């Protein structure tokens, strides 16, 4: 059985002296392998960089079969376009029209894509794909390079589009 790894905000791995004495500290190697989440402020982003041009090439090779050449979707999720449609009767939710954080794109592509080989892309490949997707959505220019500094400071069009839960909202 896999052991459950508990990571904490502050460095604190050993069981407390007054605790139950269960479990064991996770090794640094294990923590490094699994601690792959990226925060909206960029915490967790690895070194390296990727360009739109490199991303275009990678996208054609690794992504286009499911998401379409230009990210227009089919058979899988549409990734581009849709800006200005969210309040219409036929909203189109894409990276460009809906996603509030560019960092989420890095996190998700790295952990879950491509579908047939998740977590197989290198960090620079992920940066390049993210750059290309942001370019396709008009968020960055054709000469953009994404890295640990530029990605979290990239302003997504729908960043202000989310509200907290107001329910109950009927009767």
């Amino acid at each position, binding site marked *: 059985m896999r052991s459950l*790894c*508990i990571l*904490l905000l502050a460095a604190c791995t050993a069981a407390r002296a007054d*605790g139950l004495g269960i479990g064991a500290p996770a090794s640094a190697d294990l923590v490094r392998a699994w601690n792959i989440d990226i925060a909206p402020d960029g915490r967790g982003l690895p070194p390296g960089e990727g360009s739109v041009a490199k991303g275009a090439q990678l996208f054609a090779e690794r992504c286009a079969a499911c998401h379409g050449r230009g990210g227009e979707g089919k058979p899988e999720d549409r990734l581009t376009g849709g800006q200005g449609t969210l309040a219409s009767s036929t*909203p189109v939710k894409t*990276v460009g029209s809906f996603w509030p954080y560019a960092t989420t794109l890095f996190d998700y592509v790295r952990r879950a894509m491509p579908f047939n080989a*998740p*977590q197989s892309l290198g960090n620079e490949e992920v940066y390049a794909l993210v750059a290309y997707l942001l370019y396709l959505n008009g968020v960055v220019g054709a000469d953009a390079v994404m890295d640990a500094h530029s990605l979290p400071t990239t302003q997504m069009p729908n960043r202000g589009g989310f509200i*907290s*839960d107001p329910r109950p909202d009927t009767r």
Partner: protein
Amino acid sequence: MILQEAGIDPRAKWLLAEGADAAAMTRSVPLDKALDDALLVYAQNGEMLRPEQGYPLRLLLPGFEGNMNIKWLRRLKLGEQPFMTREETSKYTDLMPDGTARQFTFVMEAKSVIVRPSGGQTVRSRGFVEIQGYAWSGRGRILRLDVSVDGGRTWRAAQLQEPVLSKCLTAFRMPWQWDGEPAVLQSRAVDETGYVQPSRSALLAARGSESYYHYNGIQSWRVASDGSVENVHA
């Protein structure tokens, strides 16, 4: 208990749960919820979880949307802010008619459904029929369950079957004499907070038609004169 044992930084407000599936599925959970009634589940009904249920260990957050019950749990991480994963930004947010989207809408509000008779089934003969179904609420216990056999014009209280437990499926039943005429069956749950399960039209009026993750409108089954039962919007 696991969190207490490991120690909780006082700045922590959110918990990231991560699965060991190929996509390393992640969701952010409010720490308050984790400390209130979250469970780390390894078995159910006396047997180990099955692979498709998240063996060997999964998170269970009673009353919250099912997507948050991370299967094949491999990691918990505390943080000051939500982690803004793909599942809680681009998915599992509720798009409103004005183009804004509700985020962190975790609780599943009261809902119910008649399972017998229901769509695809046939009421074989006139006379006595026991209407049966289930109700549940992410906010607590089911307080009352009303059944209508005339499309919501009149309602009668159904009998709740014990045990009636918080945030759990609650069985209900109501005897009915079917006269052979077409009928529309509905059930309406009320939970202990006083929340009343809304009609489909009330939900559409409040949220529009693009907010589907938390749809809990009243379900209508139409019984035709030949006894066949189908889904209708009544």
